[in-house]
């Protein structure tokens, strides 16, 4: 057991040095995760970070817990399989906006619907960073910085929180890489929430989207309690500017799978015998 009563965030960092650009928002997410872990005194041996592919998906190697760095878009599927098979573990899936909302979009909506007791941290910088700056499903329609879509993607971006709500996610929060202390609180709360908890993180990419440094002027911390009514939340997610941070939605829903009843050992060959 590695439950540390007086754990410090740095105790949860691994010896592997992050490969991220200077100024990347993901450093702040890493710090928030280790801070949340320290705050909860989380057991390193009983915790697994699961990711797909992308800049943000490299994060599991930087944390001293168990980890799985899978293939592009499938982190949520790996994480749900793991949590269903091993309900005793703390399972956190994480990745970027391309990984989670484009190639992994189907897994995202079904994870929201399924409501397995785990946390998903989507580090949204509105761009594919690892492949050098292409538009993602959350990129503005007129963002014309990519050679792949020189006139901008031309299609309206997803609203991840609205998508999560429509798909049945019971707990939705938003954090910002410029406010790691708040993010650490959100992640800790997400881990403790019984069910699928979705933390949408505005995590800036100053390399491909230097304009994101302007986010700090528009980000605002929500000072009201989380909404529990889906109708109200739907209206809010469709009309907000997307820069409101905090726990935004929190509704009770039963977790899947339900706890198993104790079973007698059964002879599974019985039906085959003549």
């Amino acid at each position, binding site marked *: 057991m590695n439950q540390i009563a007086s754990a410090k965030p740095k105790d949860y960092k691994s010896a592997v040095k992050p490969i991220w650009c200077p100024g990347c928002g993901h450093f702040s997410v890493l710090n928030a995760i280790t801070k949340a872990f320290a705050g909860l005194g989380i057991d390193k041996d009983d915790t697994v970070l699961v990711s797909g592919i992308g800049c943000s998906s490299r994060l599991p190697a930087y944390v001293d817990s168990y980890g799985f760095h899978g293939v592009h878009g499938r982190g949520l*599927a790996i994480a749900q399989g793991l949590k269903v098979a091993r309900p005793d573990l703390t399972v956190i899936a994480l990745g970027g906006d391309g990984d989670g909302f484009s190639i992994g979009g189907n897994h995202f909506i079904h994870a929201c619907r399924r409501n397995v007791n785990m946390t998903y941290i989507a580090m949204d910088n509105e761009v594919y960073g690892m492949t050098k700056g292409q538009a993602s499903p959350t990129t503005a329609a007129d963002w014309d910085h990519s050679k792949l879509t020189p006139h901008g993607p031309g299609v309206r971006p997803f609203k991840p929180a609205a998508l999560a709500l429509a798909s049945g996610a019971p707990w939705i929060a938003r954090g910002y890489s410029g406010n790691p202390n708040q993010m650490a609180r959100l992640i800790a709360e997400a881990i403790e929430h019984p069910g699928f908890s979705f933390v949408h993180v505005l995590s800036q990419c100053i390399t491909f989207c230097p304009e994101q440094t302007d986010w700090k002027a528009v980000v605002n911390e929500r000072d009201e309690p989380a909404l529990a009514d889906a109708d109200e939340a739907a209206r809010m997610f469709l009309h907000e500017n997307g820069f409101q941070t905090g726990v935004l939605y929190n509704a009770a829903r039963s977790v899947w799978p339900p706890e198993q009843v104790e079973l007698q050992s059964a002879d599974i060959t019985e039906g085959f015998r003549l």
Partner: protein
Amino acid sequence: MAPKELSIAITGAGGAGVISVGELLLQAWAREGGRGLLRKAFGPQIRGGESAALLKLTETERYTAASEYNVLLAFDWNNFARFGDEICLSPGAVVICEDAGDIPAEVMAVEPRLIRLPMSKLAAATHADGRVNMFALGLLGQLLGLTADSLEQLARQKLINKPESYREAAGACIQSGVAQTLSCEVSVPDCGTKGGWYLSGNQAAGLGALEAGIRFVAAYPITPASDVLEWMAGGLEALGGNLVQAEDELAAINMIIGAAFGGVPSFTATSGPGLALMTESIGLAVASETPITILNVMRGGPSTGIPTKSEQSDLNIALHGLHGDAPHLVLAPLDIADCVYTSAWAVHLAQGLQTAAIVLSDQFIGQSTAVVSEPERCDPLVVAEQANDNDYLRYRLTDSGVSTLAAPGDADQRFTADGLEHNEKGTPSARDDDHQLQLAKRSRKLTEHDYGDAWARIEGEGEVALVGFGSASAAIAEAAELLAEQGIAARTISLRLIAPLQQQKLQAALDGCDSAFVIEQNHGGQLFHYLRGMMDFSQPLHRYSRAGPLPLSGKAIAAAVIQESRS
């Protein structure tokens, strides 16, 4: 003298209860110690299409598709016509049908012995809820010398969750069918000792997996593999495991990788199109050394192909479908009962060698049910795993290639499994030495393992060798018997382990044979080309490959061998 086999075709509309008749008839036959196979043939529709129960009652448990049918029960002639090329009647076959309507000319051409009865009317007159299929079951039961009571008991058991009036109706119709006066008789094969098992290959594969320790399954429905998953859902519930119905095959394969990473033996089943979707992540299991087992029940391809019919055309994708150098296991069951052994062996190998195992079953083996002796079981594997001395290195370079696999919850063995190339610790690395060493490690653990004698089933001595896998195994055994009648002695080699190929053992098995034939149910000769590419043969290697949907025929194989021998 009793015949060696008797084949019965029952045809009708999908949903008319044709398959139930076949199942109950075979179960009643099996209770008497009889042996037999029930093949199910469907059109692509679920209701309103055509459906056939194709029974072959036999002396032995070597189950091939019947080449001709001695008895036909046709509920109507439209649906029979849709099986035109699949159901060939023997001369003088017994044909049971309604007394009204014209019998097709091709049926009359075999000069059938006709039993024409107003079956629907008689069923309706017997009981208000009377169904013609149960009446027909009675007729067929009488032909086989089965008792009405035995059939009724089985029918009542099958209808256990239906209203009592249904069970009453079924019983009354069966009794009435058995009591009819029939104008002809058939002779039936001898029965053996009573007992044994009755199951399908898909059930057997699911059973083998559960007995080998599988406790997590992720499932996405696909024909003809859905029934494996459905059977396992119940089995896992009984054993305390979990089954998740995934949103697609991409999720299914990754869910089992996640669960396996958690230390829980994990499994999925699919068919060609699903396997194609899974291949990227099977590579992840190979690279991250996460043990998983995938049962692929092959159907006609490519693309949607012929989903309800058998073929062996996924061998190429199973062997070569992964990107990069990704050594993994490919196995194939020898027959329905052997699905228990092969599926369990695949799980043990995948777990022991920490890799992905693909089991290539096929629709013929998977969806046919048969009476078999209690299936042979596979012992757990002994693998030379090397202990870590000091700090834990997940991907430690060991002599065997196998390194200790920790799971979350294990104290102080934390690591990050990775599809990125990595060093011994698991840290991502693009270094030349790490890549060479880890590639060699992952390859070595498969090639260095001693697979023993289970790699193939070898039978007979002779100048000709017949090599195959899966449902071709029974067809080549039948061909060998036919060749023996022609004075050609043949040896059959049915491969259970296809990758890694056991070249030396196969070479030794071919010793003394003047020529070898590779027999497979696909168009391109996939096994033939694989074997040609992997080893040198000291004898000429010939190819017999014929795609589905018709099952491989021992007769056609024997004819091809004779023709080649004479040329």
